[in-house]
């Protein structure tokens, strides 16, 4: 499968599962000494906001330091790195393409601010008040705000997204179990009710929503809560079925953000201008022009000063931008981890339950699984193939979630001696002298690995892993004999294909770190098919009402991570970074997650990008 298209898919769903290396990371020179630091947690990095987390210790600055004098206004030239056109659906309820989201960020309709753990705060356009007892949430607009077309923001605009998502004609993925948690959502969706009974307009600035249950996930925008507004004065007259094609979405969407849409060349470029009605004030820039740029030429485009910033920059092009004089590289960790999964059961699609059978599985021996984890030289791979833009993961929660991530977990490290030791102790010995271990019963042991196809680097990385395992005497072969194309991979893994013993997958966790969608008893995406009462208990605790108490939730998160490490049904492999090259004429840009950054503050120090 074409790596460029994989890149597209990867970005297409910023929050999604993804395999270890199916993105573009490639090529590095071995003498590249500058990234040595990430394998030794604790060495001083830049003064990033999240410096207190050892595992997420920053390799790159997230803020662009620029002391130059700003010019008046100016237009920011942004490259949207993408090998295919963006879809151009500029509506938070309808878009599916992460590139659309990148563009919309400049002209946001989001009503809540978030903190470093991506939890909602009350500092934005609206504030949220949750009543655990009554199972209600009250959303209040904090002031007199206007849409970019001058219309005032009102309670109807908060309700509008729910009416669209719940509508029978809505065809996206957002009408899900979470959404059905809103009282009356199902009736509305089935056409039995004209409106959603659980949503109530209290006054012009207040909306009250009643849920079937309330969990801490609501602060991550879960449980059915919606975090953006839609302009009801425009959308209420457009049938939901026609919304996707409507001008209100594709041609002249109105916004609440720092910028508003000026011109759109479908799929190619967007020009945004200052939104005079922005609640925080006037943007210092006159506007922003965003153009799609193919990934193969992204680095070149930055080098030649064609653009000020690059959105969705492929980390594989790191080598080409790291030494540029006119560009500063900002970087941050992604909400992502890759993992090695072991098949320990099957999913029963009739009962919708995971049926774990550790004893009866080929990979049932925890010692074997652990040994496989120690045998992998992920450190080298991260450094040499991904030039340190990836690092060995110690847990199944990315360190970005500072409060939930457990930095004390040791995880695995490359230790072939330990792997050999564990295997020897567990009775895996080479009895027939072919250099490969037999299982404790003396039977030949051949393990079939499913791994997703990607680019050249992915191919080499997987080969290297197979080599690693062979070095400790394990005979691991590729299921189907080669890397498996993305679609086929998920078909096979999800169907519990008997040909697959282990698999390498990855998840983009999204801003809600709750693991129950991936590890609970009922989750189809629990691909390793491991479940236990203890695990279920932990997962339920994480999302229980009790966990509305942040401390309690964090504790349960850590307990869960430790439990998963112990069980080793899934072994975390890598976390990774994403990059944003920024031209040196840009001032006040901040790439961090937890900042006060707003687009209105961005300034330019020259009339044209520095070459």
């Amino acid at each position, binding site marked *: 499968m074409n790596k460029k298209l994989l890149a597209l898919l990867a970005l297409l769903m910023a929050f999604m599962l993804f395999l270890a290396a199916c993105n573009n990371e*490639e090529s590095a020179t071995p003498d590249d000494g500058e990234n040595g630091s990430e394998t030794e947690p604790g060495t001083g990095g830049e003064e990033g906001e999240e410096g207190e987390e050892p595992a997420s210790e920053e390799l790159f600055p997230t803020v662009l330091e620029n002391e130059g004098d700003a010019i008046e206004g100016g237009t920011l030239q942004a490259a949207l790195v993408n090998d295919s056109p963006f879809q151009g659906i500029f509506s938070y309820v309808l878009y599916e393409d992460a590139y659309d989201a990148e563009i919309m960020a400049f002209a946001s309709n989001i009503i809540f601010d978030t903190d470093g753990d991506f939890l909602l705060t009350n500092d934005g356009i609206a504030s949220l008040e949750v009543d655990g007892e009554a199972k209600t949430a009250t959303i209040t607009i904090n002031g007199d705000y206007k849409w970019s077309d001058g219309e005032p923001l009102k309670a109807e605009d908060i309700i509008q997204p729910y009416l669209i998502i719940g509508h029978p004609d809505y065809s996206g993925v957002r009408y899900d179990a979470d959404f059905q948690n809103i009282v009356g959502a199902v009736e509305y969706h089935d056409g039995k009710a004209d409106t959603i009974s659980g949503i109530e307009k209290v006054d012009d600035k207040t909306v009250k929503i009643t849920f079937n249950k309330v969990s801490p996930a609501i602060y991550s925008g879960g449980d059915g809560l919606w975090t953006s507004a839609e302009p009801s004065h425009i959308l209420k007259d457009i049938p939901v079925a026609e919304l996707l094609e409507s001008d209100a979405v594709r041609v002249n969407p109105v916004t609440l953000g720092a910028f508003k849409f000026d011109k759109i060349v479908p799929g190619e470029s967007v020009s945004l201008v200052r939104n005079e009605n922005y609640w925080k004030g006037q943007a210092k820039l006159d506007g922003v022009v965003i153009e799609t740029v193919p990934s193969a030429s992204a680095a070149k485009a930055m080098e030649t000063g064609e653009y000020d910033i690059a959105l969705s920059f492929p980390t594989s092009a790191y080598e080409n931008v790291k030494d540029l004089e006119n560009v500063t590289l900002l970087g941050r960790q992604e909400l992502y981890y890759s993992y090695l999964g072991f098949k320990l059961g099957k999913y029963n699609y009739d009962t919708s339950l995971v049926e774990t059978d550790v004893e009866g599985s080929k990979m049932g021996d925890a010692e074997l699984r652990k040994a496989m984890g120690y045998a992998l030289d992920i450190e080298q791979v991260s450094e040499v193939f991904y030039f340190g833009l990836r690092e060995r993961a110690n847990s199944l929660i990315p360190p970005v979630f500072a409060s939930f991530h457990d930095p004390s977990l040791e995880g695995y490290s490359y230790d072939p001696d330990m792997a050999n030791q564990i295997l020897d102790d567990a009775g895996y010995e080479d009895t027939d002298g072919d250099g490969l271990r037999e299982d404790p019963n003396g039977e030949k042991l051949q393990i079939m690995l499913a791994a997703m*196809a990607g680019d050249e680097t992915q191919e080499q990385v997987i*080969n290297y892993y197979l080599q690693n395992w062979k070095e400790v005497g394990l005979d691991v072969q590729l299921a189907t004999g080669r890397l498996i194309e993305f679609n086929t991979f998920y078909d096979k893994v999800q169907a519990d294909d008997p040909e697959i013993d282990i698999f390498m997958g990855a998840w983009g966790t999204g801003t809600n770190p709750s693991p129950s969608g991936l590890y609970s008893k009922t989750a189809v995406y629990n691909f390793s098919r491991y479940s236990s009462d203890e695990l279920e208990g932990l997962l339920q605790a994480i999302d229980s009402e009790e966990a509305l108490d942040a401390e309690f939730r964090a504790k349960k998160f850590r307990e869960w991570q430790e439990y998963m490490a112990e069980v080793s049904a899934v072994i975390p492999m890598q976390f990774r970074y994403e990059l944003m090259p920024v031209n040196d004429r840009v001032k006040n840009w901040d790439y961090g997650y937890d900042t006060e950054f707003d687009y209105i503050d961005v300034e330019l120090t020259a009339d044209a990008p520095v070459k």
Partner: protein
Amino acid sequence: MAEKQTVDVEKKTPAASPPTGIQVIAREFAKDKLAMTSLLFLIVLITVIYVWSFLIDQEQLMRISLRDQMAAPGEKYWLGADKGGRDILGQLIIGARNSITIAISVTLITGIIGIAIGLITGYFGGWIDNIFMRIIDFFITIPSLMIIIVFISIVPKYTVVTFVLIMSVFLWVGTARLVRSKALSESRRDYINASKTMGTSDGVIIFKEMMPNLSSILIVEMTLNFAGNVGLETGLSYLGFGLPPSTPSLGTLVAYANDPFILENAWWNWLPASLLILLLMLAINYVGQAIRRSADARQRLG
């Protein structure tokens, strides 16, 4: 209507030039130093590649060695190493062998099918011709590159053999069409009628009487197909629908250039394979040109 669509560079080459093909071709090569050199180059190159590739342990070659990552030429290997620290030269040899094998197999398979169908339909005409022409017309409608890509994403086990078969399914058509139109005019000639009246069976007439008279055309067609097949293999690898990278081919090697960093900074990764393809193509084309000339009395040098 179908013949008129046949557009081929060799349109003018008349069949049947009296002295035997081989002699004329030999004479032509003797006169044309470039073609001679090309031919020798091809023979030597292919021999070297095949012999050398036997001496390479592919498993050893494809072992990742992180220490040698992107080693520049001369450091450890003559042609340096790729991202996995694997010897480019070794991959070039194995890759060239794979690519040439693929191109030859596809050329032979499509050649045999295309020639057989072309000769048979051209010779018999009538309903046989009609049926095959409908099939050929249909194949011509097919955007073959697209269908090949779809096909490749369907096959569960994608190996050199499947690759060859998939390509062959779609690529015999051009040859069949060309051969058919030539056979059509050839079969009108009286020596074919004479053979019929003298009791020679159709099969013998087609393959022993008619085919030798079309041999120059066929050789030219096959040479060009060979060159085209090398190109197709490369292109599919670029799009990501080629052979898996663990099976080196010239295509996968050139596709290294897909990474802009390698394209700019690690020429030894992709340039040798590109040059090899270039030389291969040039040589094939010069050889093909000489054969084509020898088939046309008016253009002959000697």
